[in-house]
């Protein structure tokens, strides 16, 4: 009898919490990249409104599948879905926050932000065609730098990731050889180099191996003070990765509500634009109007109040013009 009593007591203790939990919860799943900022926003939003946002960072692929199968209130993906894919899955899509990819190098005697690369050189390094740092192409870009005859160790991601998708999308858009031989995607068949798992894996190899080059998320490069490079953008200027250069890219990027904002933010035309950026996207099931409205009011709140938090976590907030476009898109779909 005693055990039954205990059981009942425990149940009685747990019940109120369970009830609380059920009050109002939005379930989302998808990309790992925006997870820190979504959960920071969700925490503040919960304090203010009492609405709980439960976001599972299971990866973009999983997020797309879960929202297509309608098991979550919203999905999140680092790669934009094409309008016809959205049509097929009866989904809506809008960007939420911007991030980017930064090539990082480890070369004795070369400081952060000193080395200059252009799209052609970066592409040929990753194709394995430029094998040494004193290659003529690199020397021409950096006439003053001390470049010695050292073999380049190329580091890439070994796991499938949105970071790789943005990076290879960039290489495909600026380099014909890359597009025809390798292509773009969350994982690709790398022609050269070694693979590290996750940003930390790539950074670890790049840090440890002299004369290496790798690519990591902007936030990761900044927080770990990795030695980034300057890149030549579409307008022909050499730019450093920074909030300003990312915002410039977002400003000049041609996000179009008619195409459900489908856009790879690579090679943006702005004068000061960092060329390898990308928005991360939210996916909604078209017919679930009631829950969509709640998700939309969360992101509306985040667009109004979340910019400083996003910057603190080294994400680039959407520019105002784009936020207005997204609000228009919500209205057009009867969600606001």
């Amino acid at each position: 009898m005693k055990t039954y009593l205990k059981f009942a007591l425990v149940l009685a203790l747990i019940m109120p919490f369970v009830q609380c939990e059920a009050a109002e919860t939005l379930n989302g799943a998808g990309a790992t990249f925006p997870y820190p900022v979504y959960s920071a926003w969700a925490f503040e939003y919960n304090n203010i409104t009492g609405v709980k946002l439960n976001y599972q960072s299971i990866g973009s692929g999983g997020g797309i599948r879960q929202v297509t199968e309608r098991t979550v209130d919203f999905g999140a993906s680092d790669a934009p879905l094409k309008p016809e894919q959205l049509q097929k899955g009866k989904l809506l899509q809008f960007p939420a926050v911007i991030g980017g990819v930064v090539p990082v190098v480890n070369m004795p005697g070369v400081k952060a932000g000193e080395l200059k690369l252009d799209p052609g050189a970066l592409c040929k390094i990753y194709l394995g065609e430029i094998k040494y740092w004193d290659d003529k192409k690199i020397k021409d870009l950096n006439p003053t730098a001390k470049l010695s005859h050292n073999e380049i160790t190329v580091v890439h991601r070994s796991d499938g990731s949105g970071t790789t998708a943005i990076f290879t999308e960039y290489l495909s858009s600026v380099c014909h050889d890359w597009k025809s031989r390798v292509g773009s995607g969350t994982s690709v068949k790398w022609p050269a180099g070694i693979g590290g798992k996750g940003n930390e894996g790539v950074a670890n190899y790049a840090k440890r191996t002299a004369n290496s080059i790798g690519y990591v998320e902007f936030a990761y490069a900044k927080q770990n003070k990795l030695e980034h490079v300057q890149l030549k953008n579409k307008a022909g200027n050499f730019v450093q990765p920074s909030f300003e250069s990312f915002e410039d890219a977002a400003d000049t990027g041609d996000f179009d509500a008619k195409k459900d904002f489908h856009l790879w933010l690579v090679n943006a035309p702005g004068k000061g634009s960092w060329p390898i950026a990308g928005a991360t996207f939210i996916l909604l099931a078209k017919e679930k109007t009631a829950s969509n409205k709640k998700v939309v009011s969360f992101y509306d709140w985040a667009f109004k109040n979340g910019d400083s938090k996003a910057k603190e976590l080294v994400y680039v907030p959407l520019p105002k013009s784009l936020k207005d476009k997204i609000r228009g898109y919500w209205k057009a779909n009867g969600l606001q």
Partner: protein
Amino acid sequence: MARTAKKNPVDMSFSVITAIASFSVIIFIIGILYVLISESSLAIGKFGVIKFLTSTDWDPVKESFGALTNIYGTAVTTVLSLIIAIPVAIGIAIFITEISPNFLKGPIGVAIELLAAIPSIIYGMWGLFTLSPIMSNHVEPFLEKTFGSVPLLGILFQGTPMGIDILTASIILSIMIIPFTASISRDSFNLTPAVVKESAYAIGATKWEVVKNVVLPYSKLGVFGGIVLSLGRALGETMAVAFVLGNNHRITTSLLDAAATITVTLANEFAEADNDIYLSSLFYLALVLFVMSFITLAIAKYFLLRAERKYSR
């Protein structure tokens, strides 16, 4: 008869519950097999069996998939880790049961069991941050310098030592499987009747002779069982090697090159597999691993049974 008729309800429900528990295992296995086959049917239809198993192509962009590089990586790392682990594990077991003074038996035994309790992701991170720099800075350059120019053997030690390669992964795997082999070997060594051992000592046998001629023959079935268990673990181990193998879909002859095992590919690529044929091919890989594990365990079981029969005669 009278007893069964009087069986009380607690007894009855007890046997029913145990029966359900046992059958649920079979149902789970069949269920998993069913899911693997149905999820991979798309890839089976597109690539077939022979082509999938013999193709070395793994290109998510062009949507062309083959399993040979993964099967090769799995086989090589498993075999290599067993080669490293078995002598060490059996040495540990012999030391604990026959040689070590009593006060040391406890601490060593506990240490081995603790080794088995460490989560595999810890081995993975330790491998990435600690072992891999040691390998790339010290061990691998030494190996390359010493054996790199030896004919035939030299093929195994070529390339830039990066520390993310088959050798590093195999060493981590071997550390993970040593506890299994060691503790099972120890238990079976302990089963050797003391009388037999004492008789051997009494006629003047040395420790080495006792171990070689009495203990090892007496317990070889148990040791073999331990090795099979480790083999199963090495085949399926994922997180410990996911960080240090590089997920490189190529067949390489050098132990200092990155490679990919089936589990490493699954761990690295499953979450972001964004089209149907890609996902289906990953399930197909899992199915291949399932069949591989099944076949190895079946062969091992067969030999164990045969040996057991021979023994009991």
